[in-house]
C-alpha cells in the first residue's frame, strides 16, 4: 500500500525538491551586495551633504571672526592715528591683533584671503567659499594665508599712510 504524503507546513518544510545550493548562494550574495551598495550609496550621500554643511558653517564662523578682528584692528589703527599733528608724523603707530583660529574647518584645511572689502575663506575639497564683507576704513593689503592662528598688523613709520596686513602667526 502506498504511504499517504504529509500535508500542511510539515510537508513544505521537509520538501527539498528544486532547491539548489548554487542558486541559493548566488541569490544570497546578490541580495547582500545590493543591500550593501544601497547602504554605502545612501549613507555616503548623507555624509557628503553633512560634510559640506559642516564645512560651510565653519567657514562662515571663521570668516566672521576674521572680519570682526580686522575691524578691531582698524579701530585701533585709527585711534593710533588720531591727534597726531604734523610735528609728530615721524613717530610710530603700531597695532597688532592676534587671532587664534583652528587649523581646519570641519577637518578640512582652508585658506583666508583678505582685501579692502571682504574676508574670503575657502576649502578645496569640498569646494566651498564664504565671502564676509568687512567695514575697515584703513587700507588693507590684499593677502592670502593658510588657515590657522593669524595676526593682523598695522605699522606706520613716519609720514604716509599705513596698511593693515594679515600674516600667519
Amino acid at each position: 500500500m502506498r504511504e499517504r504524503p504529509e500535508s500542511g507546513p510539515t510537508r513544505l518544510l521537509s520538501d527539498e525538491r528544486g532547491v539548489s545550493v548554487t542558486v541559493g548562494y548566488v541569490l544570497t550574495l546578490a541580495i547582500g551586495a545590493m543591500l550593501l551598495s544601497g547602504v554605502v550609496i545612501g549613507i555616503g550621500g548623507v555624509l557628503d551633504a553633512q560634510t559640506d554643511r559642516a564645512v560651510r558653517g565653519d567657514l562662515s564662523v571663521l570668516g566672521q571672526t576674521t572680519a570682526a578682528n580686522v575691524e578691531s584692528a582698524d579701530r585701533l589703527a585709527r585711534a593710533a592715528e588720531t591727534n597726531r599733528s604734523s610735528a609728530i608724523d615721524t613717530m610710530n603707530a603700531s597695532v597688532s591683533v592676534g587671532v587664534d583660529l583652528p587649523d581646519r574647518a570641519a577637518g578640512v584645511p582652508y585658506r583666508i584671503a583678505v582685501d579692502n572689502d571682504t574676508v574670503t575663506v575657502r576649502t578645496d575639497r569640498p569646494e566651498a567659499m564664504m565671502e564676509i564683507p568687512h567695514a575697515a576704513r584703513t587700507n588693507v593689503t590684499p593677502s592670502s594665508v593658510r588657515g590657522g592662528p593669524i595676526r593682523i598688523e598695522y605699522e606706520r613709520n613716519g609720514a604716509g599712510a599705513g596698511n593693515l596686513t594679515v600674516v600667519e602667526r
Partner: protein
Amino acid sequence: MADVSLGPPDRDRLFGGDGAREADRAQLLLVAGLVIAVSLVTLVVLLNATIYSENVATRGIESTDGEALEVRATAVGGTGELIDAANRAGPTDPEDIEDSIGDLDAELSRSYAERGGVTHLNLSSVGNGSRVSGELGAVDPNASLLAGNVTRTRGFVIDVDPDPGSLNQTDPAGAVDDAFHVDLNDSTGGSRQVYVYNGTDGNVTVAVGENGSAPTALCETPPAGRSRVAVDLTGERLGDRPCPGLWPRSLVAPDGTYNITLVNADAAGGEVTATVRPVSGGAVTSNPDLTATAAVYEATIELRYRTADLRFETTVRVAPGEPDA
C-alpha cells in the same frame, strides 16, 4: 540521484563545526555593519563639530580693541586734566608735568596689570603757551586784545552773568553796536565775530557774524536762575547744550595766526579764560588788564599697551578743550 537540496539551518552551519565554510556568508553582514557604524560615527562627529561651531558663532565675538581704547582714553583724559590743573595753579614748569605723568603711568600700570595687560606711558614733549584770564568788567570797554598772533586756542570759555542789568538786551540787528562780542581776526584775511547778549525773549543768545556784518543767532538758552552761563567757544557749547558752529572751521588748524579781541566788554559781566599758543611759542601779547601766565598748551605722550593677543603703540598729542577738526 544525488541530494542537492539545502537542508534547514543547523548549529554547525551557523556557528562553525564541520560545515564552518558555509558560515562565510555572514561576513557580508559584518562588513555592512562596519560600514554603517563608521558612517554613523563620522556623521555624529561632523554634526557635533557643526553644532559647536554654531554655538561659538552665536556667543558673539568679544571685541579685542575695547580695553586698548579704554587705556588710550584714560591716558589722554588723565594727561589733559594734569595739564589743566597745573595751569590753573599758576605758571607751569614742564618738569612738574613730567613727574605727574610718571605717577599716572604707575597708576595705569598697576590697574591694568590686574587685568593681564601691560601699559607704559611716557611724556615725549611739551608745547608752551599762555593762559589768559580776567574779568570782563576790568578791561577796556571798547576793545581789548585778549591774545595776539596766536596759532591755536583751547579752553576759551566766557562765563557771563545772564542778569539783564549786566548782559545787554538786544537783537541780531542791534548786536553789532550794542552786544558784547569776541572778534577773531585771521591774519590771512577775514574776521569772525561771536556775539553774546540777552535776546528779546530773555534767553542768553549767541550769534555769529563775518567781517562786521549783521550776525545770525546760532543758539540760545534760558538763564534758569543761574548766576553764570558758560559760553565755551572752542568746545562749541552754550550752557549745558552743544552749539555747533560757534568756532570758525578756518581757525581750527589755521595756516597763519589770528588775534582775539574782546569788544563792547561793558555790555556783559563775567569772566573770560583761554589757553593760547602764540606763534612765538612763549609769552602772548595781551591787554594788561587781563592776566597772562606761562602755561603748558599741549603735551605729546607715547603710549604702549600689550596683552597676550594685542599690541597697541601710539603717540598722542593732548590739548584738552581744543576745537574738533
